[in-house]
């Protein structure tokens, strides 16, 4: 009964979304307040029905209702209850339901937080979100309903959740990633509403910015968690593979980062308006493309759960309608949206423009590398893949370039800056960054690898700029500390976000350059040395867990001949699916990770063992956490507290 209730709720949600897409939109174009007033109640009921629907699916999982095909395929009665609940999004159907549920959550949030917004804009924004909802709820209902039943041959036991997904990382990574993906639909809806009404003023940007920043923050942490999860759960210590599915989430992030910057210019200076709209459209289109790539099964990827051409076609059509429709609208209406002021060459606007160009270039390269094999295959040119060297070759120089300009852009003022003052600030910090960066690189490793050294120099370059800028903000205050504490949350967010980029950059540069790794056959008593660590393999024993059995190895690690840690990597066997899983043991530290994993048992009690030393590994993700924190912080800025009264317009 409960699964049917879920299905009915989903259908009702679909109807609500359809009404939401049409009624307020008609109202806005006819100027009918009555029709527009339907927007909020419809948005709220859409959310309510989605909530019921996903709750019903969770209930089916919690009660081991294996007559539901999706539950039978992704759960098992021996599974701990928290994994049963997270198994809701462990497969294709449920993760789509989660996607739509999160969309309805964003719609609900916009509806209850839109009191200060002009009624017609609010009606249009919610109507556009309703259209997106119609597209994806119908996709779920038609091609991938998670409520389908197996009433004839009801299995007694479920097939179990894929062991890789039985992990805290899977519990939180997909919802956060989807919060980001789907969150950009709000920026998209605002962009479409602006195009439809031909109005794009300061109030519009103040409205759009917090939503966009929030979506960006979620996407940032979603990607970070995905990388962290791949690192420890896929078992082999890789943290970024340029896998098409990773690219699928990275592309909207790059475009979204450009959007966040461009929106800042639009809000503060009334410039780049049509460009901002275009970025909002692209960002959401890339989110949809990401959904298509992951969910259609066109990819050779660790994430392709199941291939189904019908599903792929459906999303492709949705994608074509969204991109085609919104670009057409853009072509017709963007001319109405005019920028209001000018800027000089040496100004923050120019540097943000450079930031945007570089980000869009990087994004296009990732897009080409990701889609090229698919296009060639579709044209009958044979199977191929584009390897990580392609992406690294392009990504590394452009992101270093971005860091160089970041150091300049932070110090520039809006509209125009004095070249002499800028040089006076930048020259000392330039030479200091080179000196400190090279010394730091030398202290860490006498090799002085070029890219790692350059990254460290640029890291200090940006950090010095951040410090200089903070001090120039309070240079005329009597008490510097009081002055600093009075700076606005969005200023601090700017500082923290850029610091986050630096932290990630340092982490990536050092771990990519100085990691050491050995795959080796070890018999009990063997000792292997890696960097300043030595590893003694002491054998493996059998253990058993709730729904698996395992071999657990014991490896004693010495650092500079002092005891460091005893590590227990496992090789697990999950009988429900008959699958093997590697559980690595990782000793995480602020400056280095030590990573051990068991390969396979060999003759005479020997094991294949992977040993790794990964310096500054944590920094890669810690930077992501800082960026997320910064994105969240901007939402609390006072100037986004919209009141009913007219907004003060400031430059």
């Amino acid at each position, binding site marked *: 009964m409960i699964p049917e209730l879920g299905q009915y709720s989903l259908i009702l949600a679909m109807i609500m979304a359809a009404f939401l897409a049409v009624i307020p939109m008609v109202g806005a174009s006819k100027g009918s307040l009555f029709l527009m007033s339907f927007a909020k109640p419809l948005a709220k009921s859409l959310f309510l029905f989605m909530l019921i629907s996903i709750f019903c699916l969770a209930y089916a999982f919690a009660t081991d209702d294996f007559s539901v095909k999706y539950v039978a395929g992704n759960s098992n009665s021996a599974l701990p209850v928290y994994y049963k609940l997270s198994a809701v999004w462990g497969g294709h159907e449920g993760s789509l339901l989660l996607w739509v549920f999160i969309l309805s959550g964003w719609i609900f949030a916009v509806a209850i937080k839109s009191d200060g917004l002009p009624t017609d804009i609010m009606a249009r924004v919610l109507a556009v979100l309703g259209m997106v909802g119609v597209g994806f709820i119908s996709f779920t209902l038609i091609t991938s309903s998670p409520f389908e039943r197996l009433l004839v041959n009801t299995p007694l036991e479920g097939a179990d959740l*894929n062991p*890789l997904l039985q992990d805290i990382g899977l519990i939180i990574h997909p919802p956060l990633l989807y919060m980001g993906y789907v969150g950009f639909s709000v920026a998209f809806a605002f962009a479409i509403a602006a195009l439809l009404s031909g109005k794009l003023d300061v109030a519009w940007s103040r409205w759009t910015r917090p939503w966009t920043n929030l979506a960006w923050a979620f996407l940032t942490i979603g990607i970070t968690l995905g990388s962290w999860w791949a690192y420890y759960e*896929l*078992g*082999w210590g890789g943290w970024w593979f340029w896998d098409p599915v990773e690219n699928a989430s990275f592309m909207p992030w790059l475009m979204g980062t450009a959007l966040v910057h461009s929106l800042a210019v639009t809000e503060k200076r009334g410039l780049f308006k049509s460009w901002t709209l275009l970025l909002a459209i692209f960002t959401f289109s890339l989110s949809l493309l990401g959904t298509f790539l992951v969910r259609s099964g066109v990819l*050779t990827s*660790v*994430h*392709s*759960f199941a*291939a189904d051409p019908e599903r792929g076609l459906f999303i492709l059509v949705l994608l074509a309608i969204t991109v085609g429709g919104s670009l057409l609208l853009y072509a017709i209406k963007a001319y109405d949206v005019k920028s209001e002021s*000018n800027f*000089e*060459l040496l100004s923050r606007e*120019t540097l943000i*423009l*450079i930031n945007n*160009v*570089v980000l869009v*270039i990087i994004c*296009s*390269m990732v897009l*080409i*590398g990701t889609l*090229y094999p698919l296009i060639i295959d579709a044209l009958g040119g*044979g*199977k*191929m*893949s*584009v*390897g990580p*060297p*392609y992406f690294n*070759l*392009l990504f590394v*120089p*452009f992101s270093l370039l971005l860091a160089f300009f970041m150091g300049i852009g932070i110090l520039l003022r809006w509209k125009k800056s004095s070249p002499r003052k800028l040089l006076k600030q930048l020259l000392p910090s330039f030479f200091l960054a080179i000196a400190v960066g090279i010394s730091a690189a030398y202290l860490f490793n006498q090799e002085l690898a070029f890219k790692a050294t350059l990254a460290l120099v640029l890291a200090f370059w940006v950090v010095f700029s951040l410090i200089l800028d903070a001090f120039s903000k309070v240079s005329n205050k009597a008490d510097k500390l009081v002055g600093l504490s009075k700076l606005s949350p969005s200023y601090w967010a700017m500082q923290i976000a850029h610091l986050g980029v630096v932290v990630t950059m340092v982490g990536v540069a050092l771990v990519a350059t100085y990691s050491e790794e050995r*795959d*080796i*056959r070890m018999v009990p008593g063997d000792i292997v040395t890696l960097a300043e660590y030595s590893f003694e393999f002491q054998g493996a024993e059998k253990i058993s867990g709730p729904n698996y059995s395992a071999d657990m190895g014991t490896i004693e690690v010495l650092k500079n001949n002092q005891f460091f840690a005893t590590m227990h990597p496992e090789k697990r066997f999950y009988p429900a*699916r*008959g*699958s*093997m*899983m*590697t559980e690595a043991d990782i000793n995480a530290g602020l400056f280095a990770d030590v990573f051990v*994993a068991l*390969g*396979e048992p*060999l*003759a005479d009690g020997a094991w*294949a063992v*992977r040993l790794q030393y990964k310096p500054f590994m944590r920094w890669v993700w810690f930077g992501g956490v800082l960026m997320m924190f910064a994105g969240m912080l901007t939402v609390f800025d006072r100037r986004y507290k919209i009141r009913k009264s007219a907004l003060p317009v400031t430059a």
Partner: protein
Amino acid sequence: MTPKRKQRLILVLFVVFGAAIAVALTVYALSQNINLFFSPQQIANGEAPVGTRIRAGGMVVDGSVKRDPNSLKIEFAITDYLQTVIVNYEGILPDLFREGQGIVAQGEMDQNGVFQAVEVLAKHDEKYMPPEVQDALDKTGYDQEGNKQ
């Protein structure tokens, strides 16, 4: 030219210049890093280049996996049921590697017609079949167990 136009020109030139470099780099990088896929039959016909990074895939032949007792060297054969190719690999195999499973490996052909793999690709799901391998099998007309369709 007014100063304002001059500024615009500089900006536009910057964008065009940046985009041109990006396109050139992309084309170069792409041409260097494409890994073509070859089925055992194509390899047996000599279609696969020697000494170039390629991908090869097929079903792991039952009973073909041989390990070196003193290292992580391993040898196995992959097949599309028409032709068979010997693969050499040194390192740890993914959890889902087993005989009778469809796999894709990355590496190079050597002079003796042996595929020297540097990476054997792991998949999430034991039911998963790499699309390349499925495609290669479809062409030979055998199913995954090696029965003629």
